[in-house]
């Protein structure tokens, strides 16, 4: 059953095998990165609301500017993540004598980002639940805002909802990593073992870092 590029979610091996018969195209991966960026931009709304509530009335204009900047950064974040993952995988695969163009690596890495759309949606929901549950005291001085910000970080890092959101992100990242293994295998002409190492080493380190951050060991 051919379900288009969504087939990459459950059958990445055959999907990438089929893609290798065609010329590299970054259209669909770019579309995926755009969607991820949009979800990231939307996920900043609760945090932006929180920031706006902290600011005094005369600084609401600054808050609006901060909102636009945050949304822009979050939007670009989708493309940035795509680029970083792709470049890292390409470089690591060189160790295993990987062969193939960077464009193909980027294409397959972009497809691998597809599970991040689901992860982003669920993460945004948890973020909304977490931040909407907080009430903002009236603050009149910068010192109070700094104190609030520090306490907010403490709340967010110890919140069970934040931990759940982190766990969900890791799970979807594992799913993406699985797709990338098949992607690198075909894009860089690696053996299954080398493809697992190419993706597993950087992603393992990253997931380990996320777990450490999540459990508060850092």
């Amino acid at each position, binding site marked *: 059953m051919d379900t288009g590029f969504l087939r990459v979610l459950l059958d990445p091996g055959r999907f990438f095998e089929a893609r290798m018969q065609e010329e590299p195209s970054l259209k669909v991966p770019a579309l995926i990165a755009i969607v991820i960026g949009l979800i990231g931009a939307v996920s900043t709304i609760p945090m932006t609301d929180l920031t706006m509530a902290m600011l005094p009335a005369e600084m609401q204009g600054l808050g609006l500017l901060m909102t636009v900047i945050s949304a822009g950064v979050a939007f670009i974040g989708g493309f940035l993540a795509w680029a970083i993952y792709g470049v890292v995988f390409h470089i690591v695969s060189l160790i295993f004598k990987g062969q193939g163009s960077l464009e193909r690596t980027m294409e397959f890495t972009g497809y691998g980002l597809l599970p991040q759309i689901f992860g982003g949606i669920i993460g945004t929901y948890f973020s909304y639940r977490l931040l909407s549950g907080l009430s903002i005291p009236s603050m009149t001085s910068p010192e109070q805002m700094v104190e609030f910000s520090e306490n*907010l970080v403490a709340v967010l890092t110890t919140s069970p909802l934040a931990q759940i959101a982190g766990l969900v992100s890791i799970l979807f990242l594992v799913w993406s990593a699985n797709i990338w293994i098949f992607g690198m295998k075909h894009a860089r002409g690696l053996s299954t073992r080398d493809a697992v190492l190419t993706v597993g080493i950087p992603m393992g380190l990253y997931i380990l870092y996320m777990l450490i951050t999540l459990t508060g060991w850092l």
Partner: protein
Amino acid sequence: MKPLNVLIISLLCAAMAFTVPASAGPADIAVVSSSLDPSVLMKGDTGTLTVTIQNTGAETVAIRSARLYGSGVVPLSEPYPSVGEIGTGNSKTFTFSVRADGGEGTFYPTFVLDFRDGGGSLRYPVPIQVVDTPLSASVIQKPDAFAESRTADITVRVGNPRPNAASGVQVIPQGSGFTVTPTGGFIGALAPDASGTVTFNLTPTAETDVTFQVVWRNGINTHTADLVLPVAFGEDKKQADPVITNVEVTPIAGGYRIVGDVMNAGLESARSVIISPGAPATAIDPFRVYVVGTLDPDDISSFEVTFRADANTTEIPVVVEYRDNDGNRYTASTPIGLGGMTAAPIEGSEDGGFPVAGLLVVVLVALGVAGAIYYSWKRA
């Protein structure tokens, strides 16, 4: 002398010898002893006076009546209207009830014996002592300060400054607003200048006056003396004094965590010390309360409590509950500021626990991802 005259004189002498009674007069009757029970009376007391007489002569003496009269100490019983004869060497006892109607001092009611046949009478003043000094009571041990529902040891000493013994001495606490154990203390007989003590466990429930009533008997007469002990609540200088220091407030998801030290700055041990957040805070898991246990003087212990507070709450009390050695409960409250940040509870985790729905999402996602990965490798 004519023989006739001699006969007449002889007959007269013989007649005189037969007509003169053997109890010739009061000279042979003597009061040999008198006693009073109790030996010393108090004002209004009734006592029993016993007078013993003896015939020390060689002849029987006929007595018509015996009576007692006087002022200050008056007889209550009737006189002896017909006594009769007392043989030589015999004695007889007369008993009178008397009452001390006058003031203090020594009184001399008169014991009177009337002899028959114009033999005159015997008057004997009997000394009776009346002393109105009561037993003295004093509190010789009590706490520095009383506290509501805190049991205090009260020791009462009863002394006998009277010249005679007191019997059946008791101390009975009276009044309201307290409970006491025992409800009465029995000392018994107290010799002159002797004393006895009774200890009570007094637990006041309100500020009040406790009257320790000393009850004793002087003979058959019952007397009382009151000792009033005012019970006013105050701060015990030795009591435990838990002090909270080194407090650190940390916002957590859904509330706050307070970590600090509690130290006993008093001179007595604080037992069963429990620390909890007070209203308006609502305690949440994992540290709704923190049980420290016993804090001896100068001991210190760390504690930790977690709670939730409303957005407008800037300060909450941390309540320390403890007991003294008698089990009386005390509370001390220390206000703790929360700072400028207020974290409202997060929906679904109001008690600070892990959200069940979120956990379910994690499990479902994990199953889905695992299934996808398994399927992808199976297809490969």
